[in-house]
């Protein structure tokens, strides 16, 4: 029988994958993707806990996280396009200099 | 939670829905050619079978036996899977749509809906929005500029009109208080005066316009307008893969017709002496006919006009409609 533990293990593995992606990939787009994985991993954990404890707060948190993710993507992609137009690169390492 | 009988029943229903809708989608192409022909004082397909009825079979044989061409520079796996996505999402969206009133067959009550989930309307719109990936991936992987332009148009337009269709359908939902299509249907049992179209005329018009857009029908078929971008995202497709796009488009048309009939036009409630199931068929047929009629009667619009009308006319109108409905409900 699948219980809370299984869902949390899934959350943990997904979160690790996302975290490794954030740390290791130097492509800015990949950074966004990995962030989505992180947020989604947390979501599934929240909803699982919400079900197994009979409390709707977990689902609320997941709902708010999805809203935050949507706004993050809207602003982030705008910045990404600006950066790409200016530099012609989506390499994270090109963000190192602090000049305008 | 899941017992075997339910699983078997669901699978059988799913197979029936897919088979019937696919057949109807094929039949709709024949009807389209006939109706357009009569409106233009032509005869339409006449040679194959009586009144050209077997044209449908001839078209099917042609599609199945045609060579499946994959362009040299195309990204092969994505190119191959894109039409499958388009057709699949069109059919998956039908899982939460009720078609007829429940009836009894061999002492076993059948609900003609695959799964009555409590967020049915959200589900249908969500799956329809996933359907964007078909045109998008097809256009990106085809290595063809027409395809790319078609894909770009498809994405921009569908994302924009999802806003309109979502907001316009919100007002009826507020009045009924449920997202389940069965509940929405049951709220309109009292004859023609109960139809939501009388209480929400603006939402009805907005949803219908968004429906025309989401199914890429004229006058909003800028996605695959022949004179501008050849066949849009489907330019490089041939044979059965192109056929899948086609079936997906007509299945979407049927879904939109069923949705409009259920939400605004009384659904499958019996009307006067006509039983509910027949009423539903009549309404859906009327909507399919309307789709064809509009195609014959209206010229195309330009993509920029389409965007203008979406964001500066339709979206504000739907928001105003929601506000008015809210005040009226208070």
């Amino acid at each position, binding site marked *: 029988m699948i219980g809370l533990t299984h869902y949390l293990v899934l959350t943990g593995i997904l979160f690790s994958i996302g975290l490794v992606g954030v740390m290791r990939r130097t492509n800015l787009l990949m950074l966004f993707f990995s962030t989505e994985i992180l947020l989604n991993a947390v979501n599934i954990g929240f909803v699982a806990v919400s*079900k197994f404890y009979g409390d709707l707060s977990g689902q609320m948190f997941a709902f708010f996280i999805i809203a935050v993710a949507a706004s993050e993507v809207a602003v982030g992609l705008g910045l990404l396009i600006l950066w790409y137009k200016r530099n012609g690169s989506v390499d994270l390492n090109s963000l190192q200099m602090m000049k305008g | 939670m899941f017992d075997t009988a339910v699983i078997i029943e669901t699978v059988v229903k799913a197979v029936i829905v897919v088979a019937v809708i696919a057949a109807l989608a094929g039949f709709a192409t024949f009807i389209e050619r006939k109706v357009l022909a009569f409106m233009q004082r032509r005869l339409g397909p006449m040679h194959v079978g009586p009144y050209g009825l077997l044209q449908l079979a001839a078209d099917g044989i042609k599609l199945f036996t045609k060579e499946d061409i994959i362009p040299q520079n195309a990204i092969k796996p994505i190119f191959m899977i894109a039409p499958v996505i388009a057709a699949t999402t069109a059919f998956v969206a039908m899982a939460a749509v009720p078609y007829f009133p429940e009836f009894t067959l061999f002492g076993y009550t059948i609900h003609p809906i695959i799964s009555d989930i409590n967020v049915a309307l959200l589900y249908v719109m969500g799956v329809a929005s996933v359907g964007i990936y078909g045109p998008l991936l097809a256009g990106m992987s085809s290595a063809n500029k027409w395809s790319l332009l078609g894909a770009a148009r498809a994405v921009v337009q569908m994302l924009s009109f999802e806003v309109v269709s979502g907001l316009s359908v919100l007002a009826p939902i507020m009045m009924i208080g449920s997202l389940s299509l069965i509940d929405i249907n049951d709220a309109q049992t009292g004859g023609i005066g109960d139809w939501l179209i009388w209480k929400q005329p603006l939402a009805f018009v907005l949803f219908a316009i968004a429906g025309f857009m989401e199914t890429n029908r004229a006058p909003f078929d800028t996605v695959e307008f022949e004179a501008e971008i050849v066949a849009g995202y489907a330019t490089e497709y041939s044979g059965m893969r192109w056929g899948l796009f086609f079936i997906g488009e007509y299945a979407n048309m049927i879904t939109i017709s069923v949705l409009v009939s259920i939400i605004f036009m009384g659904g499958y409630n019996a009307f006067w002496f006509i039983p509910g199931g027949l009423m539903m068929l009549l309404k859906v047929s009327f909507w399919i006919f309307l789709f064809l009629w509009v195609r014959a009667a209206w010229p195309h619009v330009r993509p920029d006009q389409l965007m203008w009308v979406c964001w500066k006319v339709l979206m504000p109108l739907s928001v105003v409609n929601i506000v008015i409905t809210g005040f009226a409900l208070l």
Partner: protein
Amino acid sequence: MNDFLFIFLSFFALLGAFGMIVLHQPVHSALSLIVTLLALAGLFALLNASFLFAVQIIVYAGAILTLFIFIIMFLNVKESNLPKEPNKTLYLFLGGIVLIPLNLLVLRAFYAMPLLREPLAEDFGEIKPLGAELFTKWLLPFELISLLLLVALIGAVVFARKDEV
């Protein structure tokens, strides 16, 4: 059946996530991410969260990922412009090993909590109780999140504007 569905969906979720960080081309990564997101939507449905299931499909798969792929198409990043990532796979593997203790920590924290014994309410996670809770107990966060979305909307419009000012 539930167990089978869980294993099936979580397998695809993990496969998609793994493909996302391993694949080199952004488009392939995005497609792989779609698999993950749809599988997670299925898991939401398994967990009685039907509203989140719909929201996940509409917002993530329908809007966010479409936007991503559209941006990738718009930018048209050449193969040579993609960042070189030497030893990527090795680092990914090592990173995964390093993160195992973190997972164990989370699991131990949850084992310390008491589990729910009585069965769930009949309408748990359906849209009506969810909405009621959202607009009573969580009203202030809800308003704040709408403000955040508005700010993000205006911000995106400002970024996208042509440089006429």
